[in-house]
Structures are given as C-alpha cells and as structure tokens.
C-alpha cells in the first residue's frame, strides 16, 4: 500500500523527531522524583497519573509536526484532489503520529514505571491502559492539528480545542490502570476508542477539505 509506505519512509528518515518525544517523556519522569520526593510510597501513588499526563503532552507536542510539512509543500492539496479516500489518508496520518510519538514512549514505559517504584502488575495495567488509550489521543491530535493548519500561532488554539476531548480518555485510562483493571473503566475506554476510530478520520477529512479551500 503506497500511502502507508510513504508515511513509514518519512518517519524513518526523521528519527530526530521521535527521539525528541522520547527525551521529553524520560526527562519529566527522571526530574519528578528529584523535584517532589524520592519516597517510593508517594511516587508509586503518583506514577500512573504522571506517566499518563506525560504521554498526553507528548502527543499534543507532536500533533502539528506530521501535518505542517504536507500542508506547506502542497501535498495536502494533491491528497484532496486524488481518488484515494481522504479519511483513509487521515487514519494513516493518525497511525503515523502514534508510531512516531507514542509507541517509543510505550516501549520505555516499563522502565519509567520502575523509576517511579511501580510494582510489575501495576506496570502491566498501566501499559494496557496506554495501549487502549493512546490511539484515541493520536486520532484527536491529528484532528486538532488539521484544524489549526495555516493559522498563525495555531498551537495555542489547538490546545484549547483539544483539551476537553483529551480529558475523558485520560480519566478513564488512569482509573482503569489504578483500579488494576476494573471492567467498567476498561469497557468505557474501549468504547471510546472504537467510536473515535470510526468517526474521527471522517471528521479530519472534512476539515482537510476546508483547510485546502482557504
């Protein structure tokens, strides 16, 4: 599939951006015990929330990155004009955002968990909640990034637009991990994921058409 291949090639040829996301996450988690307290009891209680918030911020920081290039060099126009379904392209963009910004963070989450004195079972539930929750973040971030393309200082506006939508997955994800798998939160999070998967790429495609028509 040519569309996926292109996205992967671009990601592989810009490792600096992935490293940047990763460094951000590691630094926050490394600095946190130094600034608050090294007491493992307290860190253990804060760990799930902290790692979730770091993941959410990393996701936001990377939101515009993968879209701005396509917008400025005119590729977005050609995407809209082409015969390939635009929602599929938007879905692939979201997947690319997840692969480059969130997957690396997910991979080192066990390490971050150990730095914050988490128990192995707590780390497993945290990973499960992130696996289910981060795709929602990516889908929303690509929608928000698309909305603010071409606006001066669009980043701040994007934060305001996106925040209310990113809070539900944050609450459900952290609750699910902290209750170590209470089914209620898990079902809601999974439901939110499938709803986002079905609707957000279509919404992003509509926004893309508006963006190129300006």
């Amino acid at each position, binding site marked *: 599939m*040519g*569309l996926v291949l*292109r996205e992967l*090639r*671009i990601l592989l*040829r*810009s490792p600096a951006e992935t490293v940047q996301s990763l460094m951000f996450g590691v630094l926050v988690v490394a600095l946190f015990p130094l600034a608050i307290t090294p007491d493992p009891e307290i860190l253990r209680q804060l760990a799930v929330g902290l790692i979730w918030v770091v993941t959410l911020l990393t996701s936001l920081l990377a939101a515009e990155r993968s879209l701005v*290039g*396509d917008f*400025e*060099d*005119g*590729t977005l*126009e*050609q*995407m*809209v*004009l*082409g*015969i*390939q379904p635009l929602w599929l392209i938007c879905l692939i963009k979201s997947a690319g955002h997840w692969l480059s910004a969130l997957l690396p963070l997910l991979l080192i989450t066990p390490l971050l968990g150990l730095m914050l004195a988490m128990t192995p079972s707590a780390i497993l539930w945290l990973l499960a909640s992130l696996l289910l929750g981060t795709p929602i973040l990516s889908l929303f971030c690509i929608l928000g990034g698309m909305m603010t393309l071409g606006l001066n200082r669009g980043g701040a506006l994007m934060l305001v637009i996106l925040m209310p939508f990113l809070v539900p997955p944050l609450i459900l994800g952290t609750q699910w991990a902290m209750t170590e798998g209470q089914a209620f939160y898990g079902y809601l999070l999974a439901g939110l994921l499938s709803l986002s998967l079905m609707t957000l790429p279509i919404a992003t495609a509509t926004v893309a058409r508006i963006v*190129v*028509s*300006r």
Partner: protein
Amino acid sequence: MLQAESLSCYRQERWLFRNLDFHVLPGQVLQITGDNGSGKSTLFRVLAGLSDDYDGQIDWQVPSCVFLSHRFGLNARLTAFENLTFWMTLQGESRDESEVFQALAQLDLSAQAHQPCGQMSEGQRKRVALARLILATAPLWLLDEAFSALDQSGRDRLSTICRNHIERGGALVFSSHQAVEQMTVDQTLQLGRT
C-alpha cells in the same frame, strides 16, 4: 471538457474576477494572463475544485484533472522516484517503475531519481513536479505558472509534453505572465482589468 458561466470571486472586499465565461474543448489550450495578485491562482483553485467560494457555475465534463500549483507537493525527505509513485497512488495511476524512470529521464533527472527532493534546486524540483504530466492520464491539465522558473530547455520540453497531450485530445489551461512562444494558444483570458 470544462465550461464556466458567469464565474465570479469576491475576496478581501474586492472582486478578483467577475462574470467570466469560457469553454475549453478537447484539444484546446486556454491561457490565463494577469499581473501578480490578479486572481490567477484563485481561479485555478476554483477550477481544480479545491475552493467552492465562488459565484457562477462550473461544469466539469471530466472525471479527474491534474492540477500543478506553485506548491509542488514534493516531500523533502522522499526521493524524486518515491514522490512520483506516491502521487500516482493518489491519482490511481498504475505504471511500471521503468516508466517513472523514463519520465524522469525525459526531464534530465536520471541522476537525481534517488536523491531526496529536499537536496534539489528549485528548478530540479519543478521538473520532478512536471514529470507527473508524463505519467498522468487525466484529460484536463491545470498548470499554474508551470513555465516560470524553468530554463530554455525546460520550457521546450514542457511545451512538447503539452503539445503531445493536446494531440491526444486533452485540454490544457495554463497561466503565465509572459507569452510562451512555444505554445499555440486557442483562447486567452486576461484577469485584473475589470
């Protein structure tokens, strides 16, 4: 192939163009002239179907068109070859790799086929964008400022490509500040004198 009736566009409290009527038939060339800021690019975006902020009617009698704007749509990290194959995927064209290399060779880009577009000069990137025309099968071409920023041999090659397209029954709409001596133009539309 393309018919516009009383086409008007109002932007920033002035009319960019008003009541344009034109009709492009298969095998015809329409040149759009006008000064900077006279609305040429806006007209192209309307004709390409990217913008629906206009009055009047456009009748596209073709399923698809090729639109090349001043933004080339080339990713700086991908090579010329990769950018072209991606564009063909978008357009639903299926061609062999050898045909892509031939298209690049026709525009003197054989040596740059596997070079990332970010490392090319402006003129070379323009040629990569124009190589799409050789690979395209859409009957209607909309070329915004395609002849600018090209050297003499580049202009010759582009006009040859365009003439081949016209001889096959295709239609062409292009814009240019100055006359393009190599092209026979059927109609001219001047913007900015309203």
